């Protein structure tokens, strides 16, 4: 049974460790905040200029001067701080952010990532993604294993314009958890009820399967 987007977020939340500063991209990554254990201390950074981002505000308490990078109204937790864009990217480029979770259109087996542009069609821009992937030591990609047309998003080589090179270390999809190393996707975990065969079929790039592959625990 392939995972829902919420379940992908739930699985990724287990990668968030005590004391981590975390930057969450738009889409599935945003959902991760809902599943982080509440016995650990984590702070969320949003690159438009807040550290210590809290949940959405109560109805009627929205503040146009308090949004996240997805332009959603948010709140600030005790210990939060506001800052300008240059200092925000000092946090990112300077590797002060411990974990970056972002979505993607394609990932290649060498860790290349493409998630910002479909030439002649979708050209929204890279936002902070290029800074994030070029800087972070610890990047997790959250995405569906295949696109709407059923084609694999885990490729030998990216076909779309790149966002960054050789930077993705881990991928969590609706089917599997994979590590990217030695120019291959290494299968770490299967979604409950999903077979290794199904994952192989949905993966265009080289898939390395070593020993028994456990089912994810959510």
């Amino acid at each position, binding site marked *: 049974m392939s995972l829902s987007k919420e379940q992908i977020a739930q699985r990724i939340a287990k990668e968030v460790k005590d004391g981590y500063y975390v930057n969450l991209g738009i889409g599935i990554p945003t959902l991760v905040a809902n599943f982080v254990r509440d016995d650990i201390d984590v702070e969320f950074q949003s690159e438009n200029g807040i550290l210590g981002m809290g949940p959405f505000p109560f109805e009627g*308490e929205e503040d146009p001067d308090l949004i996240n990078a997805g332009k959603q109204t948010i709140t600030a937790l005790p210990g939060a701080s506001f800052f300008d864009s*240059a200092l925000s990217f000092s946090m990112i480029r300077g590797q002060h952010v411990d974990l970056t979770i972002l979505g993607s259109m394609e990932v290649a087996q060498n860790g290349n990532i493409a998630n910002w542009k479909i030439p002649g069609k979708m050209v929204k821009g890279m936002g902070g993604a290029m*800074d994030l992937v070029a800087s972070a030591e610890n990047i997790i990609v959250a995405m569906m294993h295949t696109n709407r047309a059923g084609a694999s998003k885990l490729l030998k080589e990216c076909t779309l314009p790149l966002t960054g090179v050789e930077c993705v270390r881990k991928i969590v999809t609706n089917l599997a958890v994979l590590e990217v190393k030695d120019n291959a996707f290494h299968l770490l975990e299967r979604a409950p009820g999903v077979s290794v065969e199904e994952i192989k079929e949905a993966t265009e790039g080289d898939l390395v399967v070593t020993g028994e592959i456990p089912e994810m625990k959510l």
Partner: protein
Amino acid sequence: MINKTVSNVEEACKGIKDSMTLMLGGFGLSGIPENAIKELVRLNVQDVTCISNNAGVDDFGLGLLLRKHQIKKMISSYVGENKEFERQMLSGEMEVELIPQGTLAQRCQAAQSGIPAFFTPAGYGTEVAEGKETREFDGKMYVMERAFKADFAFVKAWKGDEAGNLIFKGTARNFNPNMCGAAKITVAEVEELVPAGELDPNEIHIPGIFVQRIFQGTAYEKRIEQRTVRPKK
């Protein structure tokens, strides 16, 4: 104290001409110089290049200039929220340079700081680095990026004083402080303009030396792009 106040947005925008390069603060619709944008529409300046993280929405922010085809070129990091933008870009009516958000911020700060060029890892190995110098430092690859050159910077602050000192609010701060002093003339509009001496010198985000003109803006709409809430328990 050097007084930077001008009486209104018309005076603040004096000297703006066609084909100039303008910087505009704000992230999404938060912290954008609403008064200056309306004045640019009224002045109907043509063929401007805009350096701004986003391009507004169809009927607000920089979308207002887009609609009137005043923009020749946009330099932004993310323009996803604007259909007219996408149309003008894909049709070739408008030139667009998309650059990483951190690089955008740093190219502003470099201009503010008299740093002509710097190295960043962002965009290495991508089309953003095409035609640019790349170099290895300590085993990692970087792209050399240049400071922006702009004629006017338009920023929006929460409070300001006659000396041009600025204090921003929440995440409406974003690119605004980094654009101050990054163009030949910086125009600051504020929600509240106070006499010099009323702001605590320790709490000022941007000193007045980076601001040439300051005025109190009017009729701020401060539109919210994505109103997300949770129910009261």
